[in-house]
């Protein structure tokens, strides 16, 4: 039977050599190599659950009186978008679990991408010849963030509507073209009627297609360039040591897919997320308090909260305050990230190809820079809930802001310095061990 199929296909496509190589493909194994796979499988789960949700969602802000099953909102005027998500949650069988799995999958998708990025950074996996895939990966990260934001804005609830209001204000803050951009994207002055429909098209079509295409490219490049691996054992620059795709790696990877899906199903069923019935429908003159966005937008929200009351006004024109934390900061962040492989090659004069990974401690400068940068963005992220911290500590929120402003500079310095010293002392200890065999100890 197998032979018959192989013959039939090969007669027509001549694909036997390729398929043989596919099945025999070798994958190095390390727990940290699974992070990208988790992201990939989250995307698959997002598409599966998202298709289901899209059958029920109505991207319209036309209003009607809510008469659904959720008692506390009986008689409230809501948009079709909000009502359809309520009906999906409370009346469509399995609708709630699908919706919650979808939302949880989005959070884990972004988390897996970010941790994957961190892994790639600290092990130097972006070095030649993998600069292109580094940039594709960064583009996937930005697309995933955009799609997360457009997705949770769809239900037209009070929390996400407030987020859209802020997004509109950020667009307005862009010099010269800001007002036009905000009006063309939203279809008029906020809250314009078309925005939910546009977000819907962007969320379920434009960005997913881009993500699917770039994901394919991302994996094709991994395939072409083969996976990196940590040094040690028989692993060299000029080989790949691991398990064959068929059957061992395929079984493990499918096990991972089912595992990720299983955990997301448990979260989706048991842990409530984005309860729009508690937020209520969006009304422009209302605002939730406290209001925090999904976690991956936290750094931008925190930056908006920490950036001091300052803006530029010259010759009758102004660059408003939100431009600096919400446009300039992400612009600089991603520019530096995109350029990083080339910057490092320039500063270290290392232009050679690398297939063996670094251990973070062996590159103390890079590792210190990485932890310092991470700690900076962590402070921004934490600052997005400064109001909650102030309430909990019973101190004025201004004091918390000042503390975070100081930490945003002090913590990266301390973290970077500390990391550098620790990395140095670790390598030093390995270099002169009391009677141990250093080479095997450090590479296994």
């Amino acid at each position, binding site marked *: 039977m197998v032979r018959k199929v192989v013959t039939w296909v090969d007669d027509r496509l001549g694909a036997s050599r390729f398929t043989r190589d596919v099945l025999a493909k070798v994958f190095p194994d390390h727990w940290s190599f699974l992070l990208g796979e988790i992201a990939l499988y989250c995307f698959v789960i997002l598409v599966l659950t998202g298709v289901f949700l899209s059958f029920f969602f109505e991207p319209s802000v036309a209003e009607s009186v809510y008469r659904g099953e959720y008692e506390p909102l009986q008689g409230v005027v809501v948009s079709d978008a909000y009502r359809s998500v309520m009906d999906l949650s409370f009346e469509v069988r399995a609708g709630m679990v699908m919706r919650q799995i979808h939302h949880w999958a989005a959070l884990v998708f972004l988390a897996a991408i970010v941790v994957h990025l961190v892994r790639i950074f600290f092990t130097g996996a972006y070095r030649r010849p993998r600069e292109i895939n580094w940039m594709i990966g960064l583009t996937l990260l930005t697309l995933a963030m955009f799609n997360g934001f457009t997705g949770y804005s769809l239900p037209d609830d009070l929390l996400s509507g407030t987020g859209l209001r802020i997004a509109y204000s950020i667009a*307005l803050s862009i010099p010269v073209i800001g007002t036009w951009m905000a009006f063309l994207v939203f279809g008029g002055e906020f809250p314009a009627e078309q925005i939910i429909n546009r977000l819907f098209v962007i969320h379920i079509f434009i960005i997913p297609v881009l993500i699917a295409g770039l994901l394919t490219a991302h994996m094709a490049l991994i395939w072409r360039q*083969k996976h990196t691996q940590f040094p040690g054992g028989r692993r060299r620059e000029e080989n790949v040591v691991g398990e064959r795709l068929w059957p061992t790696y395929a*079984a493990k990877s499918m096990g991972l897919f089912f595992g990720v899906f299983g955990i997301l199903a448990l979260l989706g069923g048991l842990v409530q997320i984005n309860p729009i019935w508690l937020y209520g429908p969006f009304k422009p003159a209302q605002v939730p308090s406290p209001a925090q966005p999904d976690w991956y937008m936290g750094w931008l929200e925190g930056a908006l909260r920490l950036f001091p009351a300052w803006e530029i006004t010259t010759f009758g024109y*102004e660059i408003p305050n939100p431009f600096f934390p919400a446009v300039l900061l992400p612009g600089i962040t991603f520019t530096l990230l995109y350029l990083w492989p080339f910057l490092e090659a320039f500063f270290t004069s290392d232009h050679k190809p690398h*297939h063996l990974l670094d251990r973070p401690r062996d590159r103390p400068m890079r590792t210190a820079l990485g932890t310092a940068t991470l700690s900076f963005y962590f402070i921004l992220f934490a600052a997005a809930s400064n109001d909650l911290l102030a309430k909990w500590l019973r101190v004025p929120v201004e004091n918390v802001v000042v503390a975070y402003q100081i930490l945003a500079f002090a913590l990266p310095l301390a973290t970077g310095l500390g990391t550098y010293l620790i990395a140095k002392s670790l390598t030093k200890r390995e270099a002169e061990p009391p009677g141990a065999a250093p080479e095997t100890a450090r590479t296994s």
Partner: protein
Amino acid sequence: MKTPAQTKGIAAAFGVSVLSSIGLAVVYVQGGQTQLEGLLLGLALGGISVGLVMWAKHLMSEGEVVEAREVVPLQTDEREEVAEAYEHGAEEIGRRTFLSKWLAGALGALGLAALFPIRSLGVGPEDSLFHTAWRPGTRLVKADGRPVRPSELPPNGVLTVFPENHTHDADSQTMVIRLPTGDQIPGPDEFSAEGLVAFSKICTHAGCPVGLYQTQTRQLFCPCHQSAFDVLEHAKPVSGPATRPLPQLPLGVDNEGFVIATSDYPEPVGPGFWDRGRG
């Protein structure tokens, strides 16, 4: 390597999955229940996951394989051929400078024409950011459309109001406040009416409604990014990222005793933008 214990464990994992899937079907047919659906789906998927991973780990015997990697790109010879093939074609086109200029012109013009539909995406800003729906004599109404009498607000009372017939107009939303007796009424005298003052409810930082009024300090507070505005100081920002005061709406009382606006806001409301100074 095969031990009965491992085989049994893997079979048990798959068995849990089978039972959970059956359970899932039963729960669904019974009308569905979110927590049970999540739990059973999780177990159905998790069982397959555990089974597969244990199978791969314990029962698949192949182990580590070494595969060669091409360290140096092997197609150095072909690079020249690629460059030549491209240049050959490019010369072919480039030789005809007259035609290639026309082609470039045609593509450029088409590209420009293709940009025009972007304009259809929305109305231009025009001067809509400089005005709200407030007009001289417009009554202040609550969200339900009922007009406001000055006596409705007790000392330190606040109310969100809109222009009459424009309760959906987001950028017209306004906070009316009655300060307690003894407080200096902020702003020009003609902006207050019977002890009431009104400020735009849209934060000048990022546009959130300045939804919280702290009676002790007479501050309006934005829960989004924690800007605070001192009402006694004509709503100037006292903390947080906001840089500009909330614009003040001039108030009056019409001859039926309802509170009205005596004109639109004297300046643009809400967050800043590039040519805000134009207005």
